[in-house]
């Protein structure tokens, strides 16, 4: 029954549209990176390269320039939502083809981006927030492609965490300890206190963090697929990727995963409401912020007619659960539902529950 729902589900596509736009910008960044490499190093085919494909399949310089230009146009079309699905498929094929022509330019984050672009091409991600689509139109479509993309996130975590689990150097912490020792001076140069660096350079700390990283990746692989654990998993995942971004160079991997997290939003457009007093500044400001940051179309925002009952409050938020909230609790409900403020909500709500 569950698998049947997985393949036949119909639902709102605003989360898909938000992911499409995010991936569109990432594809633009990716093509910029590729073009910069070619400008900086020259056309890869004219110097040392390692193709997966037979050499005769490697394009000429002119052919490759055309592909990169096509990729740039496709990325813009993805952002605009016009001809977006073919553009996503073209982007995915172009990234994969480039890596097959030169494995020196293979990077896991690029392959992940190519996978997500292909899977998004299978979804109705162009039915909302797209050129020619009315802003408040009801936008629904089959979600099986989105579920497959969600599964891809777990596949990546499972592959990464599983490989680490099978590697004795990872399990023991030897790999991480070497990183901490070797790059410790770089951390100190960039302002990290020596005592902090020395702390991380202890074998037991590296061992603990290694096991933690493996556990976290495997947890994310499974927890993201569980409705009950998803919120926790997304917050843990954000913390995990931010810490990686702060300590390593991973190109677009963190942002790619962040964009993929948008796919986990429950597809129920305008299931929450924000009603606000149009005569009060702070209420207008909140409504403006919600409209600007509500990329997943979770709120129906509208002013109310001021009356005697409403005079005591500036805004009221009704959650998906039907419960109405005002004041700080309403702000928290808003923070929880907006992608940009979600991490802050997780921290604040955790602090409140500890009180």
């Amino acid at each position, binding site marked *: 029954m569950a698998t049947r729902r997985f393949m036949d589900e119909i639902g709102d596509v605003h989360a898909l549209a938000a992911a499409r736009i995010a991936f569109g910008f990432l594809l633009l960044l990716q093509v910029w990176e590729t073009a910069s490499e070619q400008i900086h190093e020259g056309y890869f085919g004219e110097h040392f390269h390692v193709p997966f494909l037979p050499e005769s399949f490697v394009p000429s310089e002119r052919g490759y320039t055309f592909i990169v230009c096509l990729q740039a146009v496709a990325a813009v079309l993805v952002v605009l939502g016009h001809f977006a699905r073919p553009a996503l498929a073209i982007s995915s094929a172009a990234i994969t083809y480039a890596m097959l022509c030169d494995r020196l330019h293979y990077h896991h984050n690029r392959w992940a981006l190519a996978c997500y672009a292909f899977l998004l091409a*299978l979804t109705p991600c162009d039915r909302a927030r797209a050129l020619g689509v009315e802003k408040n139109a009801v936008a629904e479509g089959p979600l099986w492609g989105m579920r497959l993309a969600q599964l891809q996130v777990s596949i990546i975590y499972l592959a990464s965490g599983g*490989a680490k689990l099978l590697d004795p150097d990872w399990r023991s912490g030897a790999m991480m300890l070497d990183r901490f020792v*070797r790059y410790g001076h770089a951390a100190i140069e960039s302002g990290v206190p020596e005592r902090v660096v020395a702390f991380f350079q202890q074998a037991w700390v590296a061992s603990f963090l290694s096991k933690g990283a493996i556990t976290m990746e495997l947890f994310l692989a499974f927890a993201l697929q569980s409705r009950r654990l998803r919120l926790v998993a997304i917050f843990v995942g954000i913390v995990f990727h931010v810490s990686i971004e702060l300590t390593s160079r991973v190109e677009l991997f963190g942002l790619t995963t962040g964009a993929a997290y948008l796919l986990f939003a429950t597809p129920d457009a305008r299931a929450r409401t924000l009603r606000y007093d149009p005569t009060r500044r702070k209420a207008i400001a909140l409504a403006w912020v919600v409209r600007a940051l509500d990329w997943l179309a979770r709120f129906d925002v509208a002013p109310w007619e001021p009356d005697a009952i409403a005079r005591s409050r500036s805004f009221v938020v009704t959650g998906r659960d039907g419960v109405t909230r005002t004041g700080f609790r309403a702000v928290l409900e808003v923070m929880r539902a907006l992608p940009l403020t979600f991490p802050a909500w997780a921290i604040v709500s955790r602090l409140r529950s500890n009180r």
Partner: protein
Amino acid sequence: MSSVTRWAIAAVWVAGQGVLIATGPARADGAFAFRMFPESSTIDFTLYRDVVSQSGHGTVSTKVEGGTWLARDTRGTLHRFRWDDRIKDSNIFPYAEPVHASYGARAQISRLGLALADVASHIDEDDETMRLVADVTVRKNGGPPVHTRIESRWRNH
């Protein structure tokens, strides 16, 4: 799109990912297998040219400093050759000091072998170098140094 088609696409996709991930260890760089941060290894190599000895018998190894060397062609004209004329990847340069082995030591050794072969086959105006040799030191995850010697094929003059 029919339900059967959806199932077929999903099954092919997941199976394809499974195969790529399962076969990842078979590829030196683990490409398409999402093996993030596989190692914290370093690699450093010194580049040598095997040239005909002055006695005319056998070869001697000449160290290549800074990835650049001078050699004569068949007419005796001197040419300057640079390793990075062909090899643009900064992780494969004879710095003679350890650099991070991107995608693991095995990947970098495999790439270095291919790079040696590539350079050796693109120095047509070098009539002196018989082959290129890399003296490689690898430290895997902070372990003890392991020395390896990689040689290009003999060049036909």
